[in-house]
């Protein structure tokens, strides 16, 4: 209960706060929220929520791997964008049998993501450079790399005023699940599920996962226990980068087939928010990802009733903030009751020991 309650309270708080904002701007909050909710049942919204939810979920996992190790990998943004353009160029350039083509694209994406994470990983492990600083800088560098790679004289193809990589041939694409007028579910939604299971198993059920979390919680204690902290930093960072590399794959192989100048950005930052909401637990991240995606997709309908959709951005921000605050309050209260319990037990134990 203590794991879900704060999140629910945070969402309720966000809804209330946004209602106030809507009232101040002269809109009807009830109408706004019902429009957003009924929107899910209309057209392709439900499927789109799941499709993008899968993308956000992978992003959340990538961030959470770092969080578990006490690494603040802000560079997910740069790692996934570097990976997706490299994978798109590779996928559009080679001709392989179906299946193999797809698998190699995924592999290239994961490796590219890891390679881009290797730079801050090495800097952190051997030079003690804060991963926050180095990854922020690498995030801004990736814009330049993409801009150069997508030029027509490099790997880009111009169509009208748009610039994108060469389209990936059908052999490399992942077929979706057609649901008629409700849209098409990305085939790689299942990759997200698989990654979630893998994350849960590796971190919760293996020695490696234990070592990772131990060195995250206390590097010195872990070192005393025989864990090589430097090695753990490298592995956690590379793993985080490899998962980040897969973030855009559902869209690339399921719908877009090329990566261009109109591609959305910011999944890495959404991943941070989602991982915070989900408290690094796979189910929590999944719920956070779907919530975030729902807010994004149903926001489109707000234009139709003339409500400023920025209200959704306010809501997302408030949710993240209040989730963090709510968990902190609950944690402190728990700590306090725990201390009291330990205290009383200690005192009663002492008297009991005295009598014996």
């Amino acid at each position: 209960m203590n794991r879900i309650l704060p999140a629910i309270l945070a969402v309720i708080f966000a809804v209330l706060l946004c209602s106030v904002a809507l009232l101040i701007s002269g809109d009807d909050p009830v109408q706004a929220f019902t429009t957003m909710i009924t929107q899910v049942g209309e057209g392709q919204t439900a499927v789109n929520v799941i499709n993008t939810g899968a993308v956000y979920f992978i992003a959340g996992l990538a961030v959470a791997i770092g969080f578990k190790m006490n690494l603040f990998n802000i560079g997910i943004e740069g790692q996934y964008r570097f990976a997706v353009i490299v994978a798109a160029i590779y996928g559009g350039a080679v001709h392989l049998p179906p299946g193999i083509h797809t698998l190699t694209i995924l592999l290239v994406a994961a490796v590219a993501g890891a390679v881009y994470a290797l730079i801050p990983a090495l800097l952190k492990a051997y030079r003690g450079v804060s991963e926050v600083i180095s990854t922020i800088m690498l995030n801004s560098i990736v814009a330049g790399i993409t801009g150069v790679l997508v030029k027509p004289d490099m790997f880009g193809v111009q169509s009208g005023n748009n610039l994108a990589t060469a389209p990936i041939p059908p052999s490399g694409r992942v077929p979706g699940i057609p649901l008629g007028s409700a849209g098409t579910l990305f085939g790689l939604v299942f990759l997200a599920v698989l990654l979630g299971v893998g994350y849960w198993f590796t971190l919760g059920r293996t020695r490696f996962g234990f070592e990772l979390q131990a060195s995250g919680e206390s590097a010195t204690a872990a070192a005393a226990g025989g864990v090589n902290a430097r090695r753990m930093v490298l592995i956690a960072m590379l793993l985080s980068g490899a998962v980040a590399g897969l973030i855009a794959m559902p869209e690339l192989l399921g719908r877009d087939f090329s990566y261009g100048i109109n591609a959305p950005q910011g999944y890495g930052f959404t991943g941070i928010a989602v991982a915070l909401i989900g408290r690094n637990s796979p189910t929590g991240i999944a719920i956070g990802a779907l919530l975030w995606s729902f807010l994004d997709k149903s926001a489109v309908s707000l234009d139709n009733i003339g409500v400023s959709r920025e209200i959704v951005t306010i809501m997302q921000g408030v949710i993240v903030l209040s989730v963090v605050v709510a968990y902190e309050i609950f944690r402190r209260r728990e700590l306090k009751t725990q201390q009291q319990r330990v205290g009383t037990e200690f005192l009663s134990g002492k008297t009991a020991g005295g009598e014996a």
Partner: protein
Amino acid sequence: MKHRRRLGALGVAALAGTLMLAGCAKDVNGPGSGASSGGGSGTGQGCKLAAQPPAAPAAATSSQEQGKGVDGSKMRVGLAYDIGGRGDASFNDAAYRGLEEARAKLGVKDSREVSAQPNETEDQRQSRLRQLADDGFNPIITVGYSYAESLKAVAKQRPKTQFAIVDDDTIKLPNVHPLVFASEQGSFLIGVAAAYKSKNCHIGFVGGVRTPLIQAFEAGYLQGAKAAAPGIKIEDDYLKPAGDNSGFNDPSTASLKASGQLQKGADVIYHAAGASGKGVFDAVKQAGGGALGIGVDSDQYFQPTVANDKDIIMTSMVKKVDQAVFGYLAAFASNKLGGYPKRFDLSTGAVGYTRSGGKINDITGPLDAYKQQIIDGKIQVKDKP
């Protein structure tokens, strides 16, 4: 208007005559020409200008009687803006002006405007268009080439709805009408004007984001400047690489780039950088010494957001999205979409330059001459640098 144009044409003819006498190059800003805009700190005497093309015949202005007597009161117009939406002081606002004109002149009553958000995914753009179509809006105008992929998908699913798209002509579907602009042609004239007005014979270009759309402005400008003054020096900068659209809303970086260009000696700077352009104007104004800035998209001389820099805005390269949008709506209302143009260039008057502020009144002769050359196809303007 007509009268003035004829006078201008006479002036051009006379000037062309003296040019021929003087050989193939003449210093327009030199003593006796009276063209200097004064107060310059630059050491330059202006450019060695190339011989200017023969004067343009005083062409009759094309009639702007579109939409007269057309009833559009039953039309339900959907307008999907690109990122920035209404209030961007750029092409979204221009599209809105087209809709306003349709309300006033065609009696359009029902319309809905929706807007794209930064970093949204393909499916969000598609949902937006599908919702407009399903709610019965017809025609639907999408502003910006970023809608191209989405529109291609949605137009196939909703064949009974008519769509138009600004800045893209890649969709070949019967219910999609492209509205593209030959920005390179207008920019060519801007390049000519810059070359005529630069005292140091050194000009600059600041682009917002290095995309093909903006490179067309750059290409036309460079070609025009070199055609007018083969020896001209040109600074050429972009704020952000392709894909990073923050370059269209980053006045501080724009100001730095423009200051750099001014320090190198450029004294006329053209920007194609949306809202970043304010930074360019600010830098030019601060530099003083007769340096000038050139606006883009709409007539920035009258734009409230850059009102402080009004006195250094020499001209603007206008791309009349409003005119194209209104014309499209009028053609739709009178059921004449088939004959409505898809490409807007100098000959349609939908791209061109403005004279507000009067800083280029003395060179409209040569500008009109170059314009005629382009319309006649004697000068081919490239849209790639």
